[in-house]
């Protein structure tokens, strides 16, 4: 394999692995804050203790994921320099900005208040402890924002100029932060993180009910998970996914054509629900297509012409076309399934039948890995769709890597990361599984305090 390919796999592997953790922590941070808020607001001591204990439980799971998120995030930050030095040298003045802001504005916030959330409950008041949960949420969501601003600039460069020595310079700070692409991508991505959080919480609830263990918490988790799940799954498709797709069709027609497998420009373009793209013959094998829908989704009329790959020079086609096509279809397919599942669960919850509907608890339990797959597939769509550009339309991926780091060296560190991360995965599974099996502690009333305080035994 050549150096470029190895550097790409290096980045793709490490970032995909890293993002497995933040997607859960960002989603959970919101849910933990909501649970703390419910506990703070209620007058019913039993309910308060239940929600407090539930948030303690999820904060422990959060902590495990957070640490892995941190240790796998640091390599990302360094990798721009180690493996993509030419890209960093030329665009560092632009993308270094949001990356540095992420460190300064969100990581300090997140780590400081996570310490308080985990260890400080006895040292600070209930209100302050809820505030700590909010700050952790805020920190992780700000972090997500700055990262997305970085990625969005690569997808859709704005507010820059190129200096005589080839280096990029920001022309407008607010222009960079207000990149419309970033806000669309952010909305869609954060909603995707909430889906992961909601599915994990709901699946744990379903597990407890199926095992007939910690049932009180099983019901609570299921309720919180399903309500958050409905909101996020719907938002994922409409408006966020829809808007993002429309915006892309205008600015990255090559990526959209690749995602949809549209080789030829067509008025009234069909949407291909399934099929296998054949790049040589420029067709889709075994297509399952619905006429005119794609034109409608993108332009709102069934007759509009959608630009196909034939209008784009072949050297600007996304390089891994079939993978792009599948990634996109996996994401969108799973998105439709999630919305369906959560709406059915929500309906039963409303009718008061969910907790006994074992036939539905099983799919809820088994679906917890799927949001991870959908989020990963979504990112593969975004990043493969951007190819062959590193900075869309401006700098090719082949210009950006570290030319003096040979393929042997890159393979060495890639294998090292593969090894390290395999071990991390095993440890993660053991830790999370143990924590879930132990479950939240059963609440015990402690009359010793100021009348209405409950502590755990």
């Amino acid at each position, binding site marked *: 394999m050549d150096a470029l390919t190895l550097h790409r796999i290096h980045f793709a592997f490490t970032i995909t692995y890293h993002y497995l953790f933040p997607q859960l922590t960002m989603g959970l941070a919101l849910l933990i804050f909501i649970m703390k808020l419910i506990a703070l607001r209620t007058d019913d001591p039993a309910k308060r203790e239940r929600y407090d204990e539930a948030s303690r439980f999820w904060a422990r799971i959060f*902590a*495990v994921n957070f*640490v*892995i998120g*941190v*240790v*796998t*995030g*640091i*390599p990302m*930050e*360094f990798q*721009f*320099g*180690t*493996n993509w*030095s*030419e890209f*960093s*040298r*030329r665009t*560092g*003045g*632009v*993308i*270094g*900005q949001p990356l*540095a*802001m992420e*460190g*300064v*504005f969100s*990581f*300090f*916030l997140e*780590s*400081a*208040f*996570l*310490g*308080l959330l*985990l*260890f*400080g409950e006895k*040292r600070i008041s209930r209100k302050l402890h809820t505030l700590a949960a909010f700050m952790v949420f805020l920190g992780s969501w700000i972090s997500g924002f700055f990262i997305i601003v970085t990625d969005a600039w690569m997808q859709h460069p704005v507010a820059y100029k190129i*200096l005589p020595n080839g*280096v*990029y*310079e*920001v*022309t407008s*700070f607010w222009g960079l932060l207000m990149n419309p692409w970033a806000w669309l991508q952010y909305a869609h991505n954060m909603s995707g993180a909430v889906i992961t959080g909601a599915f994990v919480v709901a699946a744990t609830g379903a597990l407890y009910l199926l095992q007939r263990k910690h049932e009180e918490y099983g019901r609570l988790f299921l309720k919180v998970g399903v309500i958050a799940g409905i909101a996020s799954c719907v938002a994922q498709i409409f408006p966020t996914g829809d808007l993002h797709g429309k915006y892309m069709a205008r600015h990255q027609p090559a990526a959209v054509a690749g995602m949809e497998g549209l080789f030829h420009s067509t008025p009234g373009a069909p949407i291909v629900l399934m099929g296998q793209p054949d790049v040589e013959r420029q067709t889709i094998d075994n297509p399952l297509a619905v006429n005119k829908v794609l034109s409608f989704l993108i332009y709102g009329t069934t007759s509009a012409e959608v630009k196909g790959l034939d209008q784009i020079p072949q050297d600007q086609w996304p390089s891994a076309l079939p993978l792009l096509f599948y990634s996109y279809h996996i994401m969108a397919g799973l998105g439709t399934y999630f919305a369906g599942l959560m709406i059915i669960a929500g309906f039963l919850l409303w009718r008061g039948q969910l907790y006994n509907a074992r036939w539905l608890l099983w799919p809820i339990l088994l679906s917890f890995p799927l949001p991870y797959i959908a989020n990963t597939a979504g990112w593969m769509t975004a990043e493969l769709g951007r190819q062959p550009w590193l900075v869309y339309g401006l700098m090719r991926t082949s210009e950006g890597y*570290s030319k*003096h*780091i040979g393929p042997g060296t890159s393979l060495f*560190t890639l294998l*090292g990361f593969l090894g390290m991360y395999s071990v*991390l995965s095993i*440890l993660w599974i053991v830790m999370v599984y*143990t924590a879930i099996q132990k479950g939240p502690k059963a609440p015990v009333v402690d009359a010793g305090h100021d009348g209405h305080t409950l502590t755990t035994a």
Partner: protein
Amino acid sequence: MGTIWFWIVAAMLTLYVVLDGFDLGVGIVYLLVARTEQDRRKAMHAIGPVWDGNEVWLIAGGGTLFFAFPLLYASSFSGFYLPLTIVLWLLIVRGMSIELRAHTHDSVFMSLFDATFAFSSLVLAIFFGAALANVIRGVPLGADDYFFLPLWTNWRTGPNPGILDWYTVLGGLLAAVAIAMHGLLYLALKTTGDLNTRSTAWAKKALPVVAILTLASVPATVIARPDSLIHYQEHGVAWLAPAMVVVSLVMIAISLARGWEWRAFLGSCTYLASMLVGAAAGLYPVVLPSVGTEGKSITIDEALAGPHTVRVGLVWWTFGILLALIYTVTVYWLFRGKVPEHSEGYGH
């Protein structure tokens, strides 16, 4: 503008070394001074709530370096490819060891994580010291401002250096001992009982070694990088840094003798900070010296990002770092004082 950013980045990385230094130091001396399970929990408890926040100074410092000096970031990170990647792996091992130990109740696994915690901390300290020594000694920059360093060549400084040579190994050793002492003084400050006694006793033994290695590093630096004194000669204020090094060593010695835990730890913070500031002052205005024949040293002006970028950056950076300092101080204040004798450890 470039000078401001030079000192901003230097200050952030210095703060990282001072803060995460004691986490690493605790790791280095952990097996030595914390003998019982109770002591090990206490040691972990002393760093538990803060180590992650301390590590953020490295991330934020690295990020700031990236945007303020893209050329320096690109050149040095890719040039130090192998050692940096190893540092990343060690940071993974260190972080996971702390976290996992808190989650395990099986004594076999606990001793495994104790060992990985101690090992990764020690090697990290050595690598950080060696890395700094590499920057001081200089690297074989090519005409395109890039370089690539193998881990070792012939162990000599000069035009064909490796990451490790006699000078950088000395730097690594000095860092390991100094950071170990820093950790000992932190443990003494944060704990009571046996752990406190043992940490103080070991700190007393470490101090002379630190002093001797520090002294040895002066002629070594002049040999490895003959022009390193130029800036000192041009700017008299730079001499403050080595002066502070001496003062802080004396301060540690007196405080240790009198049993002043706070002052001893402060002395050690000052020592580490003055050493690093001293090194930065010796480099300025160069950020990456060249030892090769092809390329010139990279200076602040060459490496600095575009003018608009750095001007706007100063505004948000100032604002953000004030917030960060507030959080940091708050957390330290809330977890101030000694770790309770019967701490439940850093478990959640």
